């Protein structure tokens, strides 16, 4: 079944079946969902890499599909995240108010994803985008908050609307809805206009500054198994649109001589860097582990924008690599948090502590994920960040570099917080009964751990595939890579060697450790407390306001954006009230006045 049309129909069919199965028994329904997702993923993986999927349509004649390397890159990552997350469903669904629809909407949104990346028609792209939005919008409120879903929907819809207006502008100029032809066919002011509209869509979906408000709300409050999908998969739709705008449309405008880059791209890079800084600062002060990771997604969205704005081969490759690395890292981190939340019922860091002693594997998964997220070798995030750094230095984008480096160092700070507050530190007595996640949930955990390391050690296959994308979509030079190395302007990175040497270092340290006298094991409570007797482990756990001195420095400013959007909503409401007052008055005279005004106006104009 390597036909896209069949895959779509299969997913829609399984969605309906999963509804009834879940109704019957949520465990059976979820297992069915795992197999359905797995089937789709395997079909895509088996045929898609070599572009061997069948794109003909017979049952859905009003659709048309074509396969591209770029689309496949996204679709395989997202389908993979969906597959991984589906393993969590059996253990979470029972908690949700409308669990029957959960698998249905989950599979429908996957169908939307596949359609979106395989279609070659703009309106169908919009169709699939909207389908993804509304199906996922109904998944989010099953978690903690309804507001979150509204915010997610509002921003996503703003993005889609900008996209659709852009599509119609293209259509007006080119006369057709074909994606490739449409993007190639516009020029001049039109292309600037479309560029702006597409970028609004990209920013909204990627959750980058200034359209990021929904991100922490949605990620933080979504059902636990859905947050990894949002962060690892769905925000990447924005990156896709961003590529279309930055690389494919690439409007010709004024060029900034010093860095040899078009103004449009520089502005986007600047927005990206703002996003990095804001995301990092907000993540540092966040107390909810999931919201913290959400802000980290915002900052990583910024990296992706910076990468695609830099307009050269290794920057582009770095951006794509970052999409993959971040998808794996954030999915891994969110899934670890989900496992903890399942066991303890909270994601607030101040309520948690010492989970490592009960859930060591989950801890390890989180550790590996954040190492990649912070861009530390030997994980995938390092290679992508390294490529992005090369691009930034190569262009000499100094101000952008400040943000890029700030985000990179800042990420050490915020990824460490859940590690310290949630997994490490004192072991709380209320979680004594907690056990490690069940085996079914550990399967994806292990797979993602493995892939995080794989992407950081053996970049060859991934870079090769990215080179296909570069050849397909751009005129950039491909990136040179051997099994373990990647080469960019300022030198060669040997990822395999780094991993090896790290291993050697750890081995030496381990030998020193093992040769010396064995330590005496003491309780966690048995610590230096300046001779005070502390009886409650909560008092010995430093986790609330971890970076308090730093947070205090921008406490006031951190609410600006939220206030702005609150004020915006308020203003719209006020306009609505004014309009009601003006048009919907109980006084008939008001209506009469309007009628008269219009008649007089028209007569006046005509008489003139």
């Amino acid at each position: 079944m390597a036909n896209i049309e069949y895959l779509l129909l299969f997913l829609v069919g399984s969605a309906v079946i999963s509804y009834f199965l879940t109704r019957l028994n949520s465990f059976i329904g979820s297992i069915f969902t795992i197999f359905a997702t797995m089937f789709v993923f395997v079909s895509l993986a088996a045929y898609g890499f070599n572009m061997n999927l069948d794109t003909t349509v017979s049952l859905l004649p009003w659709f048309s599909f074509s396969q591209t390397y770029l689309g496949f890159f996204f679709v395989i990552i997202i389908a993979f995240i969906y597959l991984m997350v589906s393993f969590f469903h059996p253990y979470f669904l029972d908690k949700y108010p409308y669990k029957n629809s959960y698998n249905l909407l989950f599979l429908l949104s996957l169908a939307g994803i596949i359609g979106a990346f395989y279609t070659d028609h703009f309106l169908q792209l919009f169709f699939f985008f909207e389908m993804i939005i509304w199906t996922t919008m109904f998944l989010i409120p099953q978690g903690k908050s309804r507001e979150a879903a509204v915010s997610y929907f509002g921003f996503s819809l703003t993005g889609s609307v900008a996209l659709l207006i852009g599509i119609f502008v293209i259509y007006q100029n080119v006369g057709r809805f074909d994606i490739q032809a449409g993007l190639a066919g516009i020029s001049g002011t039109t292309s600037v206009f479309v560029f702006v509209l597409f970028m609004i869509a990209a920013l909204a979906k990627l959750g980058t500054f200034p359209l990021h408000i929904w991100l922490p709300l949605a990620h933080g409050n979504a059902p636990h198994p859905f947050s990894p999908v949002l962060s690892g998969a769905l925000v990447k739709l924005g990156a896709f649109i961003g590529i279309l705008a930055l690389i494919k449309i690439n409007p010709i405008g004024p060029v900034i001589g010093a860095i040899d880059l078009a103004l449009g791209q520089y502005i986007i890079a600047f927005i990206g860097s703002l996003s990095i800084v804001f995301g990092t600062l907000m993540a540092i002060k966040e107390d909810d582990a999931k919201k913290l990771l959400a802000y980290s997604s915002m900052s990583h969205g910024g990296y992706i924008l910076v990468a695609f704005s830099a307009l050269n081969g290794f920057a582009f490759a770095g951006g794509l690599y970052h999409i993959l690395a971040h998808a794996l890292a954030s999915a891994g981190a969110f899934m670890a948090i989900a496992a903890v939340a399942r066991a303890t019922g909270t994601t607030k860091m101040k309520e948690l502590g010492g989970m490592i002693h009960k859930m060591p594997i989950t801890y390890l998964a989180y550790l590996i994920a954040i190492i990649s997220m912070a861009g530390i070798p030997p994980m995938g995030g390092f290679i992508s960040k390294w490529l992005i750094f090369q691009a930034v230095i190569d262009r000499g984008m100094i101000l952008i570099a400040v943000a890029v480096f700030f985000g990179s160092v800042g990420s050490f700070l915020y990824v460490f917080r859940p590690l310290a507050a949630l997994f490490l530190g004192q072991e709380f007595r209320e979680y004594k009964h907690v056990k490690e996640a069940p085996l079914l949930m550990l399967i994806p955990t292990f797979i993602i751990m493995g892939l995080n390391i794989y992407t950081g050690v053996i970049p060859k296959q991934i870079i090769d595939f990215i080179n296909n994308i570069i050849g397909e979509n751009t005129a950039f030079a491909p990136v040179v890579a051997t099994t373990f190395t990647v080469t960019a302007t300022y030198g060669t990175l040997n990822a395999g060697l780094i991993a090896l040497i790290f291993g050697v270092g750890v081995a030496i340290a381990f030998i020193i450790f093992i040769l010396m006298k064995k330590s005496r094991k003491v309780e966690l409570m048995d610590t230096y407390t300046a001779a005070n007797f502390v009886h409650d482990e909560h008092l010995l756990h430093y986790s609330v306001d971890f970076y308090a001195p730093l947070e205090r420095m921008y406490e006031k400013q951190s609410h600006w954006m939220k206030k702005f959007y609150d004020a915006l909503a308020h203003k719209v409401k006020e306009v609505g009230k004014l309009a009601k007052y003006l048009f919907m008055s109980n006084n008939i005279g008001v209506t009469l006045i309007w009628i008269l005004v219009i008649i007089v106006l028209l007569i006046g104009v005509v008489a003139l």
Partner: protein
Amino acid sequence: MIVNILVGIGIALFGFALQTSIGGINRKIVGRLQKRHGPRWYQEFIDIFKLLSKRGISHGWIYDFGVIMALGGIIATAMFMPLTVDIVAFKQFDNFFIFVYLLAVGMLGMAMSASGSGNPWASIGVMRALTTMLAYEVPFLIVALTIINVSDSSSLTAIQAFQQTAGNNWFIIALPLGGLVGVLSLMGMLGKKPFETYIAPAEIASGPMVEYGGKQLGMLFILHEISVFIEVSLFVHLFLGGASNIFIFLIKYFTVYTVVNLISNVNGRFKIDQVVKFFYKWPLLLAIIQAFIAIYLGWVI
């Protein structure tokens, strides 16, 4: 490959021995400054070996694992470090970013272990260490960006070679503002006063180290010595033209470490938010100005 790895281990070992000795000598110098005799120059070796041989406590597996990971990461970083243009374990692969980020693995391991000890002072120390890092890294990386852009390579040996080429000055002269920022950042990296807030012995009971003793503390001492070696060597290679032979390296290394140590001894201690404010005010501004004039205007002395 095996030979390269052995060379790398040799460099790490050399670095450890070098820094421990120079650290001892510096204690002596500072002692003399303060009208004391000061300890013997090999006092630090004695401390470390004593600690390693003692029986300490352990707060659980992450407490031990973190220490191993930390020391492993630092040893790995040191193995990449070139001593001179020729003495380097992995030619071409001594990429600048490896030193920044592989070092972070070590730091992460140590932070993990400290937090795993369950002592809140340790966590506060870690918080302060990370905050300090956020402060000094950004200006430093901007200067490094300028250097890489100017010398057209991110390999440390290539950067050394660029400075040693006839007609090129050392970067501390070529980029004077950047050099100044480099010195300040180095002091932050080394945790020298006024940036030693995260250890702050009388304030937070030695911060991250509060729970350690025995072999764990010994290993952390080794870690500290090697990381100082890495940071000072990085400064030598980036700003002082590196070294064409090992003696020049030793001289430069000794000078840098001693000067920084002397400066720090006449300073008080910043509060942690003052550290951040400080680095984001002048050093960052200077680094950006330096980058502007070096990259956009091409004014390199």
